[in-house]
């Protein structure tokens, strides 16, 4: 399994992984209505993209939704992981850490139809906030694991104890020592949560109702009813955004690891 053959095989596999993204990117500059042959370079799909009011609304909705969901998930994740990482062992801790990973394991369709029938049964309106709550649920495992890992790694540092020896109250030590130290992990968890919410299609598809159209839902409708090359342009922008978010996350982690070594 060693040697050149393996590297060639892996290069080919990576090629295959990136083939759809490359094709989509290339065709977003194609001057033809159909994605078949190359008819010259154009930027018109990008320009029509930024004039399409419906698309821009969908984009704005997705961004707002992702922001709300990641904020909720980050706050819930911070509280829960603080208790789990810093407090003395307590009843229910194990149960919670099992439960919080369930959204990762469940096929999204189960959560989608579950929430749909739950909301309908209780007469909860399907609006922006019900969707944001559902997105926060999907994002919760990501923020929790990121923040918990960071808090656990700080355990031996005893920096808070030093702060308290110097006269700070627990709350001051938390605010001035723990929170800044956990900051990068908080941000990186939120970025992941943001990405999860922004890319989510299945849950939004089931419970968005008629009022809310997120970007992935909009792409779905475009794919179902009348394919336009604008999708290529839009998808390229989305992939670009994903790469920026992931790169931001990676950079934060690298920065955090570097700082941890200093401490």
């Amino acid at each position: 399994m060693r040697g050149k053959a393996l590297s060639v095989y892996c290069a080919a596999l990576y090629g295959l992984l990136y083939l759809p993204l490359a094709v989509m990117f290339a065709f977003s500059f194609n001057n033809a209505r159909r994605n078949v042959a190359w008819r010259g370079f154009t930027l018109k799909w990008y320009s029509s993209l930024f004039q399409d009011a419906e698309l821009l609304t969908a984009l704005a909705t997705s961004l707002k939704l992702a922001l709300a969901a990641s904020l909720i998930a980050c706050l819930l994740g911070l509280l829960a992981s603080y208790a789990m990482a810093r407090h003395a062992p307590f009843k229910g801790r194990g149960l919670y850490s099992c439960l919080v990973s369930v959204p990762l394991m469940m096929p999204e369709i189960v959560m989608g139809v579950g929430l749909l029938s739950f909301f309908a049964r209780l007469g909860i309106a399907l609006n922006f906030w019900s969707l944001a709550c559902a997105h926060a649920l999907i994002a919760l495992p990501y923020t929790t694991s990121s923040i918990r890992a960071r808090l656990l790694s700080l355990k031996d540092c005893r920096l808070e104890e030093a702060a308290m020896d110097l006269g700070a109250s627990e709350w001051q030590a938390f605010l001035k020592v723990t929170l800044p130290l956990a900051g990068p992990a908080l941000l990186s968890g939120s970025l992941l949560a943001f990405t999860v919410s922004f890319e989510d299609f299945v849950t939004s598809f089931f419970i968005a109702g008629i009022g809310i159209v997120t970007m992935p839902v909009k792409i779905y409708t475009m794919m179902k009813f009348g394919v336009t090359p604008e999708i290529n342009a839009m998808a390229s922008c989305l992939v670009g955004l994903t790469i920026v978010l992931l790169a931001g996350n990676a950079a934060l982690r690298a920065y955090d690891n570097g700082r941890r070594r200093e401490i």
Partner: protein
Amino acid sequence: MRFLSWLIRGKSPKASHLMLAPAALWLLIFLILPIIGLLALSFIQRGPYGTLLWSFTWGNFSRALNPKYLPVLLRTLGYASSATFLCLLLGFPLAYYLSFGAGRSRGTLLVLLMVPFWTSCLVSLYSWMIILGRQGLLNHLLLKLGLAENPLALLNTPFSVLLGLVYFYLPFMVLPLFGSLEKIPRSYIEASYDLGAGTWATFRKVTWPLCLPGVFAGCLLTFVPCLGDFLTADFLGGSGTYLLGNLIQNQFLMAQDWPFGAALTTVLTFCLTWAIFLHQRFEGRELEMRG
């Protein structure tokens, strides 16, 4: 301030519970209750025009297993297990390379593996439709190269659905495999070589058994989402590749038969729980073997 300090100090379990409560409530309201609700719904009769009749019935489940729908269930299990097997087959060499051969480029390669995984699957689906279509890129290429005389039907076939599933879930397989290959102490492998074992014997007797937990985790992480996937079959499959996910989606959004849809979802959740249970058992045995 006192209260906050008390909360943060966490000397009493009450403080811990109070801090855990918001997230726990969230899980209860948006995860547990909906799933219990689905389970309850699956034992209820459907009234006319999609209304609910509140009387107990096994009917939804027996309907899920009748000859009209049983093939969908079996087909889904078939697709999910073949996709899992293919992911293992294709992904193992990659995971092996990442942990043993990649050297300095490993970090970059891992990030590169994550990008398609984080990209909305709709985007990649759309792209595969462009590539595989009758007038798509691949057929274009095959015709140009003279490898085919007429455009091949690549889209809307079991082939395209399987390709889509493998494409989407390959990273779910590779990452756990990488994780467990990474944990194998290199000295074990060196010791095996020192004791005269060849490459193949070392792989079979040392590397493979030690990375089995990763294999099981990867298979689980690939198999479970494959079971529920409905987008791949929706866009890349034809009528012959109608899967459980599509059937569930249809019952909830088109047919308005929520109880039957809920029963199908319960079956899906049952398959998933069973897969997790199997995984745990293998994990347990694995630990015993090592213990």
